[in-house]
C-alpha cells in the first residue's frame, strides 16, 4: 500500500486525496483518508453504513471543509474551495438522496446540470443523449421534478451530472432505488461513458457486485479509515470481500445462527 504512494505514477492522478480528515461538529467522520483516482479509470469506495463514503465525496466537492489534509484535482489544490468553483473545473457530483430541484421542470433541471457550459448546441445534443438513456425523462420533461417517482428522480440526478460533460464524476449510490433492470443499465451507461468519453469516475455503491465488476480500482472504508485497497480483480477474490460485500457465504451457517462474524481486516 505504501508502495503505491511512493512509486510516482506516470502522470499526476486526476484526483488525489491526502490524509483527509473531516468531521461534523465534534464527530469525526473520516480520519486520514488518502486515495487517488487516475485519468480514465473507474474507482470505487466500498464500506458499510456510516463508514464515511458520502463524507469523502462531499469533502472532495467542497461541501464539507476538511479539518486536515488536501484534495488535488488535476494537479491543483482544491481543498475547501467553493463547491461551485470546483464544479467549474470539471468535476461533477451525483449526490446521495437525489437532490433534484423540486419545482423546476425536468428539462430545466437538466439545463441546470449544464450551467457551466456555454455552448448551447452541445448542450442540446447531450440532452438528446440522456433522453436516449432514460426515455421516461423525455416523456416527463415538462413535469416538476419533485413529482417524479424515487427512481425517476435518481435517473434525473444522474443525467443532470452527465449534462455537465465533466472530466470526473463522483457517483454516490447511483443505483439507489432503481429497479434491477435499470441498475444494470445504469452501470452499463457508466461504463460506456467511461470508455467512450474517457470520463474518470469515482463510485460509491452498496451494490458491491456491480461496483467491483465495473470498476478498475477499489478502496474499502471502515469507520472512516481506508482498510484495504487494490485492483478490483484482486478484491473480488478476497474472502472478506466475498463474505461481507458480495454476500457469498454458506447460507446455512449464517442463516440459522444469527451472530455476526467479526471483521478481520488487516
Amino acid at each position, binding site marked *: 500500500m505504501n508502495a503505491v504512494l511512493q512509486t510516482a505514477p506516470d502522470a499526476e492522478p486526476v484526483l488525489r486525496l491526502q490524509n483527509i480528515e473531516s468531521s461534523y461538529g465534534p464527530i469525526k467522520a473520516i480520519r486520514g483518508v488518502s486515495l487517488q483516482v487516475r485519468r480514465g479509470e473507474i474507482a470505487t469506495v466500498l464500506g458499510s453504513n456510516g463508514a464515511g463514503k458520502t463524507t469523502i465525496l462531499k469533502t472532495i466537492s467542497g*461541501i464539507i471543509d476538511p479539518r486536515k489534509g488536501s484534495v488535488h484535482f488535476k494537479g491543483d489544490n482544491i481543498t475547501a474551495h467553493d463547491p*461551485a468553483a470546483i464544479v467549474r473545473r470539471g468535476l461533477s457530483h451525483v449526490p446521495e438522496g437525489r437532490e433534484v*430541484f423540486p419545482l423546476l421542470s425536468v428539462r430545466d433541471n437538466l439545463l441546470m446540470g449544464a450551467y457551466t457550459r456555454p455552448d448551447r448546441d452541445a448542450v442540446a445534443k447531450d440532452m438528446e443523449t440522456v433522453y436516449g438513456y432514460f426515455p421516461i425523462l423525455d416523456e416527463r420533461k415538462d413535469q416538476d421534478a419533485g413529482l417524479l417517482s424515487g427512481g425517476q428522480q435518481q435517473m434525473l440526478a444522474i443525467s*443532470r*451530472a452527465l449534462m455537465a460533460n465533466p472530466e470526473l464524476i463522483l457517483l454516490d449510490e447511483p443505483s439507489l432505488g432503481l429497479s434491477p433492470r435499470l441498475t444494470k443499465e445504469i452501470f452499463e451507461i457508466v461504463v460506456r461513458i467511461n470508455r467512450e468519453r474517457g470520463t474518470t469516475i469515482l463510485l460509491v455503491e452498496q451494490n458491491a457486485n456491480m461496483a467491483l465488476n465495473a470498476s478498475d480500482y477499489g478502496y474499502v472504508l471502515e469507520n472512516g479509515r481506508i482498510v484495504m485497497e487494490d485492483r478490483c480483480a484482486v478484491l473480488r477474490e478476497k474472502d472478506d470481500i466475498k463474505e461481507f460485500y458480495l454476500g457469498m457465504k454458506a447460507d446455512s451457517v449464517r442463516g440459522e445462527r444469527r451472530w455476526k462474524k467479526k471483521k478481520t481486516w488487516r
Partner: protein
Amino acid sequence: MQFVQLLVSGIAQGCIYGLIALGFVLIYKATETVSFAQGELMMLGAFAGLVLMQVLGMPFWVAVLASIAAVAAFGVLLERVVIRPILGQPAFSIVMLTIGIGYVLRGAITMIPGFGTETHTLPVPYKDQVMQLGSLVLASEQLVVIGATLLLCAVLYVMFRYTRLGVAMQASSQNQLAAYYMGIPVQRLNGLAWGLAAAVAAIAGLLLAPITFVHANMGFIGLKAFPAAVVGGFGSLPGAIVGGLIIGVIESLSGFYLPEGFKDIAAYIVVLLMLMVKPNGLFGEKLRKKV
C-alpha cells in the same frame, strides 16, 4: 362616473402596491426568503434621489439612474456583508435579519442631522400634471407608476422564465446544495438577486416619492404590499401585480361605499379571505411534497 373614478384611483394605488410587491416576489423567487427591509430600501432609493437632485444638483434622469445604481450596489453590499455569512441557514433567520436591516436603515436615516427626520418632496419633471379623460382624472405621477410597474413586471417575468440566470436563481432557492453541485455560483446569484431587488425597491421609491413624499417611515407602505403579494401568490410576478390591483381597487371602493375604518383593513380582510379560499393565492403553485 363616480365608480369609474374610484376604480381608476384604485388601480393607480394598486399599481403602487404591486410595484413594491414585485420586489418581495423577486427576492422570494430567487432566495426563498421574505425581505422585510424592502420598504426601507425603497426609502433609501427615494432619499438617494433626493440627495442627488437637491444637494448635488444632478439633472433628473442622471439622478434617477445614479440612485438606482447606488441602491442596487448597496443591495449587493448588504448581501455580501450580512446575508452571505448565514446563507444556508433557515429562511427564517434571514427574515429576522431583514427586520434588523430595516431598523438600522430607518434609524440611520433619521440620525442624519436636519435631514433624516424631515419630510421632503422630490422634484420630478412630471409633477402636478393631470391627465383628464372626460371627467376622469389621473395624475401623471400615477400614470408613470402604472407604466413602470407593467414594464418591470414583464422584464422580470421573462428573466425568471426564460433566461438561464433566472432559472438558476430559482434552482438555488429550491435546493442550494444541488445548485452548488451543478456549479451554480449560488453566492454570486444571491448577491445579484439582492442587488436587483434593491434596484426594484429604489425604482419604487423614486416613483412613490412624488405621491407620498420622502421621509424615514415611507417604507411602512410595504405592509400593504405583503397582502398584495400573498393574494397574487407569493412566487408569482404577475400575481404581485394582480394582487396589488385587487387590493388597491377594493380599498378604494370600500373607502367610499363601506363604513369608515374598512378602507384601512380592507387589504387584510381580503388576504384572509383569499387564504381561506385559495391558500396559495391566485397564481401560486399548488405545492405538495411527494413522499
